[in-house]
């Protein structure tokens, strides 16, 4: 406990190797692009990618795509995370409910979100509703599983102790179950956020008129590999940024360390 470096210290310790690896990838990429080993037009140089990114930023297209995608992913994530957490708490706390529901979840979980795009389109059209619901569905299943697992692992002695100390149900939930499951809830939300971005891409490829994945598809039709690389770069950075934000929020709430 005492010798563990602070989270900030640990993050700083990881930054060096991460930057080193990024530099190595960049170097390898540059060498491959400039060596002529790949047919021209299939692999952009880092410079071409950067200028495609800058052009997108200047035209405002990049910003509007990011906003469109983040709005969709955010709304779908919020809905899915809310429902998934609620269900996870319910099935994690009530073994009988869990016995009824778990087989259903086990059946639904291996179906990838992208396989549901045609169905979502048939039911809800190609508007925003279909995309939001698809993302929400994917996030719901992911968050549910993690939260369920976390809640069902809360030591029974914690709940028993709370009852012998005279805590009524609402206090047992807010003051015992919720904090005890908080590390799992945090992990669930981080995983759910990454699932939201995966489902976002599936949803946008299924028909959209804006968004990062939609733009990738358009650029693909014109074989603009420089713009495609720029789009993928933005998608990746977005995922990293979202995860860092959630992890930072989590550290504020889960400060006692796993026990």
């Amino acid at each position, binding site marked *: 406990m005492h010798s563990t470096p602070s989270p900030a210290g640990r993050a700083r310790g990881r930054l060096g190797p991460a930057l080193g690896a990024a530099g190595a990838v960049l170097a390898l990429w540059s060498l491959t692009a400039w060596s002529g080993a790949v047919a021209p037009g299939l692999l952009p140089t880092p410079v071409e990618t950067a200028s495609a990114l800058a052009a997108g930023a200047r035209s405002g297209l990049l910003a509007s795509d990011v906003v469109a995608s983040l709005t969709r992913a955010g709304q779908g994530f919020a809905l899915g995370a809310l429902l998934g957490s609620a269900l996870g708490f319910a099935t994690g706390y009530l073994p009988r409910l869990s016995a009824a529901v778990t087989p259903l979840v086990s059946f639904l979980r291996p179906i990838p979100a992208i396989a549901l795009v045609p169905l979502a389109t048939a039911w809800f059209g190609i508007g925003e509703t279909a995309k939001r619901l698809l993302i929400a569905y994917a996030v719901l299943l992911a968050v549910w599983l993690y939260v369920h697992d976390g809640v069902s692992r809360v030591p029974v002695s914690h709940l028993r102790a709370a009852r012998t100390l005279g805590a009524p149900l609402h206090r047992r939930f807010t*003051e015992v179950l919720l904090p005890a499951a908080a590390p799992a809830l945090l992990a669930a939300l981080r995983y759910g956020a990454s699932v939201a971005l995966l489902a976002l891409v599936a949803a946008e490829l299924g028909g959209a008129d804006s968004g990062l994945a939609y733009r990738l598809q358009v650029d693909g039709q014109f074989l603009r590999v420089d713009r495609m690389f720029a789009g993928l770069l933005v998608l990746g950075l977005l995922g990293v940024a979202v995860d860092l934000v959630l992890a930072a929020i989590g550290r504020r709430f889960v400060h*006692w360390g796993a*026990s």
Partner: protein
Amino acid sequence: MSKRVLLEGVSVAYGRTRVLDPVELDLPAGSFTALLGPSGCGKSTVLGAVAGFVSPAGGRVTAGAGPVTGPGPDRGVVFQHYALFPWRTARGNVEFALKRLGLPRAERRRRALAALAEVGLAEGAEKYPAQLSGGMQQRVALARALAAEPEVLLLDEPFGALDTLTRSRMQTLLRELWQRRGTTVLFVTHDIDEALALAQRVVVLGGTPGRVLADHPVPDGPPDPDLRSLIARHLHALPTG
């Protein structure tokens, strides 16, 4: 501040497996009883039935005037693995127990600190359980259980995970607390010397399913080697299990 606890023909089954044969046990208000037996003999099950964690298959448990139907703050429990809330400091854990009393915040804090001082942990009040040693954690658990002002205190092998020195200090502390408060105490252990050092009475439990094998008063004063060997014979006469 203490209740009589009465078990009348209390038997317990998990599914179809009987783990406890009917037990008759009368714990007078303010008494200190040790429940002694090997692991798996059902002694924690007896404690669980009094705490209200376990519903008996037959018979009934009474605490004070009313039947036991579930856990309640009149019967405090100290768990083997402390069961402290790791997200709360030592003081926060004790305050959890005090919330029930509806005290103003400052009073709650004052009482929590007093309860920690009573168990000799005034220094560690703002530490989290993970920053405390096993003995200190069990002190917090004791303070937390007593802060809820229970009339019966149930302890389930509370010092089993502690080293010998810490253990004997905790035993002394528990005796003092009991003498000061007069709470009815039921102390579950598999250690014969611990039972004899602490309790006024030793109830030996054994067999599968478990049943009461012997019930001895422990006289005050220096340890009685004859009583020790008598109880040891009860324990060792058991088929191993």
